[in-house]
């Protein structure tokens, strides 16, 4: 067990280095000059251009820029944003709670709907319900996020008037200071009547949009994993013993069927964070996704690099943790590899 974990952690290190390199190169391949993007429409004197390039270290050879950057990251320094002059890690820390809150709610939405749908589809295999779940899951999986978001805004907010259009809070009626950065918690701390409800209402649409792809994946995975387990001998034995269908499915089958599903849920962290980039833009959600998009527009290399590194780092870490959990649940794994 211990050796497995050690090997797994050791494997993560080169992944990080590769990630560092790829991010560095990719960011520089984005066309456009950070200084041009910064100074706007007016012409810039060549002397000042040279000075700015020097200040940002852009006049250094590329290999040296990379070494400086790698050295910084090793020491926890993700650079300073060209635009805001704030350390990238500091900006990230302010924005990440918003993304985390959204991703968490989206995941809850996906799991709460996806698991039962998958289980029921498997139990009632071949039924109309099964086909419906599979069709909806396929549609959800292939839905372009931007379009889906706008569609929901049009229907839920504009037509039915059920949910707010965008943002994290009702700005006309409520105002309180961020304490934790999580709107659901801050609204409760604020003691303002109705604030929590308003915060929750603002989370509904973005959570649905962001949770749709994970929901589809979880439903499909649960169904296939469940089908496999339902065919196992011990399930048949349990049935033969005369246990109620609910006990057979709920107690015996589901517990074992969940193992691969947990892995899939872990893998969805990446999807959630990647989806956040678009979802946050549509819903004016002030999280890291939106910040990354703006950083691209401004050619803010340090923010872009740092942001991608931090997000990818989190995804890698979550997957590492999921792998370990997996091993803890299912001891067969550690002998296999």
């Amino acid at each position, binding site marked *: 067990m211990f050796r497995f974990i050690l090997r797994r952690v050791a494997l993560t290190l080169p992944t990080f280095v590769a990630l560092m390199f790829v991010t560095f190169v990719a960011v520089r391949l984005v*066309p*456009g*000059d950070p200084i*041009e*993007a910064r*100074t*706007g*429409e*007016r*012409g*810039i004197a*060549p002397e*000042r251009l040279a000075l*700015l390039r020097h200040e940002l270290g852009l006049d250094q050879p590329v290999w040296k820029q990379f070494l400086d950057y790698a050295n910084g990251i090793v020491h926890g320094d993700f650079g300073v944003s060209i*635009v*805001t*002059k*704030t350390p990238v890690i500091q*900006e990230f820390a*302010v*924005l990440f709670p918003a993304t985390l809150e959204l991703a968490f709610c989206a995941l809850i939405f996906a799991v709460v709907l996806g698991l039962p749908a998958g289980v029921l589809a498997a139990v009632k295999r071949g039924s109309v319900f099964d086909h419906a779940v599979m069709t909806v899951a396929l549609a959800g999986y292939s839905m372009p996020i931007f379009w889906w978001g*706008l569609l929901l*805004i*049009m229907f839920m*907010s*504009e037509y039915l*008037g059920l949910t*707010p*259009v*965008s*943002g*994290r*809070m*009702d*700005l*006309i*009626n*409520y*105002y*309180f*200071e*961020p304490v934790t950065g999580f709107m659901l918690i801050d609204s409760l701390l*604020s003691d*303002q009547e109705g604030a929590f409800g308003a915060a929750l209402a603002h989370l509904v649409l973005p959570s649905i949009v962001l949770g749709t792809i994970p929901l589809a994946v979880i439903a499909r995975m649960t169904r296939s994993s469940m089908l496999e387990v339902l065919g196992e001998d011990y399930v048949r034995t349990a049935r033969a013993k005369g246990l109620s269908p609910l006990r057979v499915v709920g107690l015996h089958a589901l517990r074992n069927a969940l193992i691969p599903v947990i892995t899939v849920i872990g893998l969805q962290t990446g999807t959630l964070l990647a989806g956040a980039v678009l979802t946050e*833009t*549509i*819903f*004016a959600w*002030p999280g890291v996704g*939106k*910040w990354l998009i*703006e950083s691209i527009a401004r050619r803010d290399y340090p923010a872009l690099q740092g942001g991608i590194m931090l997000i990818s780092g989190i995804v890698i870490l979550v997957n590492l943790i999921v792998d370990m959990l997996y091993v803890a649940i299912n001891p067969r794994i550690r002998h296999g590899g």
Partner: protein
Amino acid sequence: MRVITPKVALAAAMLTVLSAPAFAAKTLVYCSEGSPENFTPALNTTGTSFDAARPVYNQLVEFERGSTKVVPSLAESWTVSPDGKELTFKLRKGVKFHSGVNGFTPTRDFNADDVLFSFERQWKPENPYHKVTGGAYDYFNDMSMPDLLKSIDKVDDYTVKFTLTEPNAPMLANLAMDFGTIMSKEYADFLLKKGTPEQFDQIPVGTGPFSFVAYQKDAVIRFKAFPAYWGGPAKVDNLVYAITPDPTARYAKLKKGECHVMIAPNPADIAALKTDPVVNLISQPGLNIGYLSFNTQKPPFDKKEVRQAFNMAIDKAAIIKDVYQGAGQAAINPIPPTIWSYNTTIKDYPFDPEKAKAMLAAAGVKTPLDIDLWWMPVQRPYNPNAKRIAEMMQSDLAKIGVNAKLVSYEWGEYRKRLQQGEHMTGQLGWTGDNGDPDNFFFLLGCAAARPGGQNLSKWCNKEFDDLINKAKTISDVAERTKLYEQAQVIVKEEAPWFTIAHSVVYEPTRKEVVDYKVSPLGRHEFYGVDLK
């Protein structure tokens, strides 16, 4: 960037009480498009950042809301010396600064020291704030202030004298621009002593109608009405900027009442906005021009006749109809008709492909002629779809035997190459900053024709250049108008540009918004606006 201090919490608590239904505080919400870089206009070049700082600040002189007319603000009156080189401002007395959310409380009223500080920060490298927050003062430098200013002197506490190296008529309008914003010297000193000068640009303290409460990047900026404002308190209690980058979401929010005023609607939504029962769609011709520049340093565009022929070969009316879809008018002169000195007697070239063909032949141009035609990769207020325009021009030009190859680059690269004069023909445009004609005419002046300069036609006509340079030094508007009218005659005859259009600016507001005015300068201003 999030700013939290005990003072903010207190202000928040007070706001909470105020926003309780019993008091029915009025909160005006503006759906803006992006986050400001900071709150010091002198450091910025984007409309987004200027709009965010404007509620907090004043300038010596200002543009009247909804127009380009320069009116007194922190300066009550001014005099210009007979030689035009000295501007003396009499400052308004009893003007209060806000208290900062970071513990700053002003001990004195606004005076000449604040004016000196605000300009010296941009001008003098020895000013302790010169290098703070990047320290790039693009507008101050672009407006040639370092060359124009000889000195700024405090005559007494309420009199400031600007001495110029040469007379400059647009100076007053320039000072009304955002880089002319007056900040508090006392606040600057306070933060310097505290060792946090960078807060100066993040937690703004000004004399304006609204004071700053809090800013959460990419989410919201909050202001509240400043009760002691010298012009009288604002009509709403709170002003909130809801930062909403997507135009479709902005429109949806406006419809639902989550915001009252929105910036930049999607052109595709204009038709729906016009018939929307909750929306007032205000529109106004924008202070802008979109044009196609001919590089006069590259043959055959060095010949006037060729440029004229091109002017006749392109169907401008079709472009206005198809691309601007009613949100623009055909441009005849290099300045929009909303600006003073516009020459109404000038006639545009007729659309006449046959004559264009004949003129090309007479100029000795052999067809088929291969040229390149550059189009901008982005949408701008003055040009909603440069690619589509380029395609329409391409098909018109094909009819007179000209093969136009369409070329484009990434936006920054595009502008750089155009300014270097690498193109044969290329689209660009301009939005006015201050309502002075010089702010448009300099685009065709000889100084800007240098490689890297903003004169994309690289056209240097001595007669024209003399006229605009002379006009700049005269302060009499009638006399300047005459010179500019003459200059427009020359531009039309010499045709360094194919002038495309002046676009119309749309500002959707909700019906309960009272007295919102569209700014021809593209500003968004909320002092004086009320909610029913």
